[in-house]
């Protein structure tokens, strides 16, 4: 599906103007698409034969979803499952897909500007330079990192059940792809800000699992020396500020940190994580606006998991997508599948490149789902069982595992090996946390002021 604009995340295929088997010339109208902004005909960006229609008339396709396969000859086969399973940026040729960067795709009514209300200020992402091909190592690295996030959360969950950890937790099972996809783009020296639900962000950013676990155990060896706890984990040296547990509170901090990068001419950026619920609070509005007007090097990453605690997003927001709110600040907004780590990676790579190039912030909405409750004690009865089940099918780790296996990049044996190694890593982290020293009671009194 071609990219129809910064704020357009999906479209309905009204009808196909060609049928499978038809010859298609470059520039010839191929199908008609309707979005919440426009209806338009889309032209073929290359010549060929329409081999197969993947999304039929009347159906809805998200941006970056393959909708048809073009081949060079009328009877060409289109290969195994890997040829349409992976994302378009990683395919050699033949899907008509969401990449607006494909130079041949032209909009018929080019004079319409359907995107940002201040489109003249929107700098088009330099996609060609920012969508590097992921190497196998990178893919496996992201996979492993997601598994680490998941297994860390599962371990923590049981440690809580056993009463071995104090305090409360807000877990992120199901949201690993957004954390890992975003952080995999970051460089040393970049910074992230996080929320009351920070574990996966911390692990994705590379905060040491040992120091994280020790913090949850309230030990002096924790990343915050036992003073922060689950909701405030962070490690500036690893590129993560202490998580801010008040919704939206980290957003102005992210803008400020980005201001320091810009001012000091450091080539760094900030990735600012928050949930969709945070987009209703004043600090979101003020912080994003300031980042926008000053072109600060920050990417606002909204993990839309559909519920602010128990409150469904539809009850508290009238727009369909958080990314539509970007238009109020004159910055690009886009919505992506937050459960596909490669989709996340590429979207973040574009946004990060914009930020690094001095073109300012992007509001990147990643659609995902928290498989656990809001906090430790939440059974989540406010969500329909079918909804939860539907999202479980879309588990970002299982899906990626399947894909990597199918692509032959991951050997079945390696899956078990990875899990076993992580298990061992977590055993170690727990052991070291438990053996680590408690803070002294009077340590409570230090670290209020820098002397």
């Amino acid at each position, binding site marked *: 599906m071609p990219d129809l604009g910064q704020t357009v995340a999906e479209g309905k295929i009204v009808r196909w103007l060609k049928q499978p088997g038809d010859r298609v010339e470059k520039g010839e109208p191929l199908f008609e698409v309707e979005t919440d902004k426009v209806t338009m005909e889309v032209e073929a960006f290359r010549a060929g034969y329409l081999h197969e229609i993947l999304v039929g008339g009347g159906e809805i396709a998200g941006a970056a979803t393959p909708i048809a396969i073009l081949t060079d000859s009328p009877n060409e086969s289109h290969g195994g499952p890997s040829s349409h399973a992976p994302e378009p940026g990683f395919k050699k040729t033949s899907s008509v897909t969401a990449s607006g960067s494909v130079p041949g795709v032209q909009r018929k009514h080019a004079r319409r500007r359907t995107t940002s209300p201040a489109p003249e200020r929107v700098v088009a992402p330099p996609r060609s330079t920012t969508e590097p091909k992921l190497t196998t190592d990178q893919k496996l690295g992201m996979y492993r990192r997601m598994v680490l996030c998941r297994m860390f959360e599962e371990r923590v969950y049981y440690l809580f059940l056993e009463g071995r950890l104090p305090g409360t937790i807000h877990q992120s099972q199901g949201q690993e792809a957004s954390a890992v996809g975003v952080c995999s783009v970051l460089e040393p020296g970049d910074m992230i800000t996080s929320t009351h639900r920070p574990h996966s962000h911390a692990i994705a950013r590379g905060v040491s699992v040992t120091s994280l676990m020790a913090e949850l155990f309230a030990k002096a060896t924790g990343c915050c020396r036992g003073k922060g706890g689950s*909701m405030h984990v962070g490690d500036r040296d690893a590129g993560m500020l202490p998580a801010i547990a008040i919704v939206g509170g980290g957003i102005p901090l992210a803008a400020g940190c980005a201001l320091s990068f810009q001012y000091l001419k450091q080539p760094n950026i900030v990735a600012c994580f928050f949930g969709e619920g945070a987009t209703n*609070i004043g600090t979101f509005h003020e912080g994003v606006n300031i980042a926008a007007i000053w072109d600060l090097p920050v990417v606002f990453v909204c993990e839309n998991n559909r519920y602010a605690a128990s409150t469904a997003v539809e009850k508290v927001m009238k727009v369909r997508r958080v990314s539509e709110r970007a238009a109020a600040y004159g910055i690009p907004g886009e919505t992506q599948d937050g459960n596909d780590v490669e989709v996340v990676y590429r979207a973040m790579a574009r946004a990060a490149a914009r930020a690094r190039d001095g073109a300012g912030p992007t509001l990147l909405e990643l659609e995902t789902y928290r498989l656990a409750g809001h906090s430790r004690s939440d059974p989540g009865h406010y969500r329909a069982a079918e909804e939860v089940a539907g999202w479980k099918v879309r588990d970002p780790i299982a899906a990626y595992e399947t894909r990597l296996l199918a692509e032959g990049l991951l050997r079945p044996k390696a899956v078990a090996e990875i899990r076993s190694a992580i298990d061992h890593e977590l055993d170690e982290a727990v052991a070291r946390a438990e053996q680590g020293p408690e803070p002294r009671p009077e*340590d*409570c009194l230090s670290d209020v002021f820098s002397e």
Partner: protein
Amino acid sequence: MVEALREALREEMRRDERVILLGEDIGVEGGFGGAFTVTLGLSEEFGHRRVIDTPISEAAIAGVATGAALGGLRPVADVQYGDFLFLAMDQLANNAAKLRYMSGGKLTVPMVFRAPVGATTRGAQHGQSLEAFFMHVPGLKVACPSNPYDAKGLLKTAVRDDNPVIFFEHKLLYGSKGSRKEKGGLQVLGVVPEEEYLIPFGQAKVLRPGRDATIVANLLMVHKSMQAATMLADDGIEAEVIDVRTLVPLDWSTVFESVEKTGKLIIVEEDNLTGGWGAEVAARIADSCIDYLDAPIRRVAAPDTPVPFAPVMENFYVPSAEKIVAAVNAVVSWR
């Protein structure tokens, strides 16, 4: 205490159609009934028209409640944790508290803003005690019940008050029933009558009489103080324990009378020492009762630090019965 608070809201909502509730996650089907289950079930009885789930917008919750009060309703709004009150501070301190005054007395702002306080191993942004900030804003009343009976009676009074009331509830006093059980939470005993009763603001309660020293406390610290008084009694020291119940208005005459009797004052609060409400109590006594004082006024309060996460530090942070005993012993043995 959760049940007592819920009953107060239910009774007031049945009594007066103008009472509505506003807050995050307070009425969602299958949800929590607010962060600590106080409003659980109320949306079933009163519907979403009266139990209104809001976005995460603390400033607007406070401002909307204020505006609705000006328009003739009697809103009861809440934040999930008292710490979030700072987000609503402008609306509460600059608008709700001052609109009556700015209008030359022509308007009233009958609203209640509920806020859970107290350290419960949630760290620096989910455990503060904030009474002093609001006691210092002219135009706001401040309540801080220590037990279910008072909670019900004071909340009902708050709902009927024509002024904005900040209503603090301690997380460890909500009770140990249900899924919201807090580690270290107290199940405070005491009968809560089902029938209607009101507790007027500005009436402190002498929970235990004593001749040797006066302990003034609120919220959870009332219980720590009672515990300390028991320990002190073993050593023959009879401490009088006063639960202030409301900080604005504060029942000065009860406190004055007690200090005039005992000559010694210890104030116990979970808030940070410097600028806590205890400072105001000490200052008033140092003004009005100086001739009766025969020992330093001691405050047992949290130190001037954020709330630490680690339980070992949090236990040091929150005043303990032992620290109260030590403070009382120090003043009783003065000179």
